[in-house]
């Protein structure tokens, strides 16, 4: 591991993490420390394993029948893949925002409070919804039509709704899997602004194929290539003077 990492506690760490689908190894012995209250970007060409790695962090790979995970993932020192750990409990603390907005076929309000509700919150749901929508900078646009279908929102609004939905769970980490890839530049800018604001409250791991975006929003950047972690360090350093030739080639657009 290279680069200067700022002094923040480690909230999530992988130890020799490998992920395979059947015979195909997608992530290879990755050691990575995610720091609390920081934005960590994971970049790399398509198929480099960055999304796969992200989905290991909240056990979304449980739904892929032939996925095999080796090594360890520690969340606040607890092994995420310990038999005693309830994946539902993990996902309450490590939220996720997906590539394409995926609102439920429900009202805006019910989209936000569904997560807390199924996890046993009964009180002050209205207040919770308002706060989450405020934080996701969506409140002003939807406060008069909370009970309309979420499917009537624009793509950018839907994605902010999905962010509000994740925030309503009050997670410690928010995983973002190319959250802007289906959005236009203006909607993208709004999401990036949100990521900046969230830094103080949450830990964010964002997978992106857009290097400018990684440079704009993140504190630290990890570069993955063919399943290997090539370089990991402060974003400034990675983008100005990377240690590895491979990183420099990717960042300057020589491949990828």
């Amino acid at each position: 591991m290279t680069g200067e990492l700022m002094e923040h506690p480690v909230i999530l760490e992988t130890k020799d993490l490998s992920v395979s689908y059947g015979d195909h190894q997608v992530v290879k012995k990755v050691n990575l420390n995610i720091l609390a209250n920081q934005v960590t970007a994971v970049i790399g060409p398509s198929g480099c394993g960055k999304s796969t790695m992200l989905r290991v962090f909240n056990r979304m790979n449980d739904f892929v029948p032939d996925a095999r995970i080796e090594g360890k993932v520690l969340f606040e020192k607890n092994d995420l893949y310990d038999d005693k750990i309830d994946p539902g409990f993990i996902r309450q603390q490590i939220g996720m925002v997906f590539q394409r907005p995926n609102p439920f076929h429900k009202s805006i309000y019910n989209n936000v409070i569904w997560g807390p509700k199924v996890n046993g919150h009964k009180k002050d749901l209205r207040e919770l919804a308002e706060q989450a929508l405020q934080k996701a900078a969506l409140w002003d646009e939807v406060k008069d039509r909370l009970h309309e279908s979420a499917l009537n929102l624009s793509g950018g609004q839907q994605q902010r709704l999905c962010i509000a939905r994740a925030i309503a769970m009050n997670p410690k980490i928010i995983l973002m899997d190319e959250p802007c890839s289906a959005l236009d530049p203006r909607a993208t800018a709004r999401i990036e602004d949100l990521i900046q604001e969230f830094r103080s409250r949450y830990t964010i791991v964002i997978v992106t194929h857009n290097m400018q975006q990684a440079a704009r929003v993140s504190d630290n950047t990890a570069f993955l290539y063919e399943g290997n972690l090539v370089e990991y360090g402060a974003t400034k350093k990675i983008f100005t003077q990377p240690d590895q030739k491979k990183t420099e080639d990717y960042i300057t657009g020589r491949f990828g």
Partner: protein
Amino acid sequence: MISKFIDHALHWTLVVCVAITVITTLVVVIILGKESYLFFQEVPVFDFLFGTRWEPLLEPKSFGVLPLVVGTMKIVFGSISIALPVGLMIAIYMSEFTSDNVRSIVKPFLEILVGIPTVVYGYFALTFVTPMLRKLFPEMNIFNAASAAIVVAIMIFPMVTSLCDDAFRALPRSLREGAFALGATRYEVAIQIIMPAAASRIGAAVVLALSRAIGETMAVTLAAGATPELSLTFLESIQTMTAYIVQVSLGDIQAGGVEYMTCYAVGLLLFLMTLVMNILGNHFQLKSRVSQ
């Protein structure tokens, strides 16, 4: 020259095939309409639609179709209230709770159920379902609406299952992942996220199943009897609209008289009912396509 001729011949063959479809439909509608018109010359439409006694063969003759409609409705709603929950649960299980292996075993069984001739279902009702039910309700008639509704349910639930299964599978994986990512269980995702998202296609499945139940003939003729009574019980013999048409067609009644023309009027009503159902079903399916 020859190839041009073949081209023309092929074109006209296809046009004829298409024309046959259209012409058949038109002829059926025209004949139903014409014969019904003659019937309604003798029996007022109001008496037909809202009369409560159906006794076209007894003096004084009475042509109130309500007993037949109620008989049909008993079968329709009785069967759908069994077939919908069963069909939905199987579909939810196949698409959300199990692997493709289990699905590939269950699907052929459902297809076999669809392939069983309806007359077999009728005898199944008469010789198996009714005796079983009579252990529970000893006062039950040999011919009764309950056992007919049960076998019609068995006939239509595979359709509900297969249409709902398709509907659930058409939903993107990301929708499920979004729900799981909030810490929900499979049960919560299936009931609260997947089913509402497929609501309009479930609606379409129900309507198509209803229309099939309305038109079902053989099993209800055998199992439900031929007693057009206006009542609410499922334990007594009834007569459905289709079963009545069978009875007339079997030849007890002389062709040409007003008694004979009743079956065109009943047939027209039946046709309109299934037509409305099919239009509704298509509307639901279209709506679901727009919302996705």
